[in-house]
């Protein structure tokens, strides 16, 4: 192999190693956040794959000195919400096999599926992920006060739907 070939091969190997490392470091975080919002493994995998591709393409913005996590979380939330909106007309109720002991959770899952994508996202971030109002506000680009009021509305909607089903 020529000298140039060796150089190119080395660069390709380094890129592949960098890609593998990047994916292995952040895949679980992105996947779990996407799963919390969508409640479905197939949608979470789609979101995870898309976010990691975007992240790797925007590698220049995510320099070594910068923590990529905030960018990944922000992009994952938006991408997952888009996925919920896109498939709203379809059956986007959380699937049974995604959750251990699902038998007790079916009612919750069915109720969640009736909420708006924004409400599902808010509940997932606040109750599921434990994000602060400020973190949610930053991710959704809305004021903190709006987060509080919309979260309250989302909880009320969930309670109403839950009550109607019983």
């Amino acid at each position, binding site marked *: 192999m020529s000298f140039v070939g060796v150089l190119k091969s080395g660069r390709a190997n380094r890129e592949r190693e960098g890609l593998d490392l990047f994916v292995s470091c952040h895949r679980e975080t992105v996947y779990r956040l996407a799963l*919390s919002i969508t409640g479905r*493994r197939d949608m979470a995998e789609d979101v995870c794959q898309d976010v990691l*591709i975007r992240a790797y393409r925007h590698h220049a913005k995510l320099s070594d000195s910068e923590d990529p996590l905030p960018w990944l979380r922000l992009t994952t939330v938006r991408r997952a919400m888009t996925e919920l909106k896109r498939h709203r007309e379809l059956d986007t109720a959380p699937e049974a096999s*995604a959750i251990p002991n699902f038998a007790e959770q079916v009612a919750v899952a069915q109720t*969640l599926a009736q909420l708006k994508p924004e409400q599902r996202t808010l509940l997932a971030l606040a109750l599921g*992920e434990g994000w602060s109002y400020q973190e949610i506000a930053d991710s959704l680009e809305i004021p903190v006060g709006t987060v509080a009021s919309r979260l309250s509305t989302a909880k009320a909607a969930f309670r109403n739907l*839950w009550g109607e089903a019983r």
Partner: protein
Amino acid sequence: MNPQDPIDQLERYYRELSKADVPSTAQTSTVPALRQSLVGLGLGVALAATALFATLRFGGQPSAPAPGWGVDPGATAEQTHHPRLRTEVPIWHI
């Protein structure tokens, strides 16, 4: 905490959800997709560079002589059949 509050049920749902395994297929499908995406991006850039080079190098020149291009009014029919030949340097100058 009120055990009958639906929000408690919702919190339990999220706790259960967080225990779900991360499927290994996510990794096996993501990395090849990323690689394919990067290869596609590289091919796209190479194609665009080739098209740009071709445009800059040959873009201003017609692929065939325009009608009447370089025709000498006094040329014979055989000469006008090969108009490009008459634009070349005469052989006795080489």
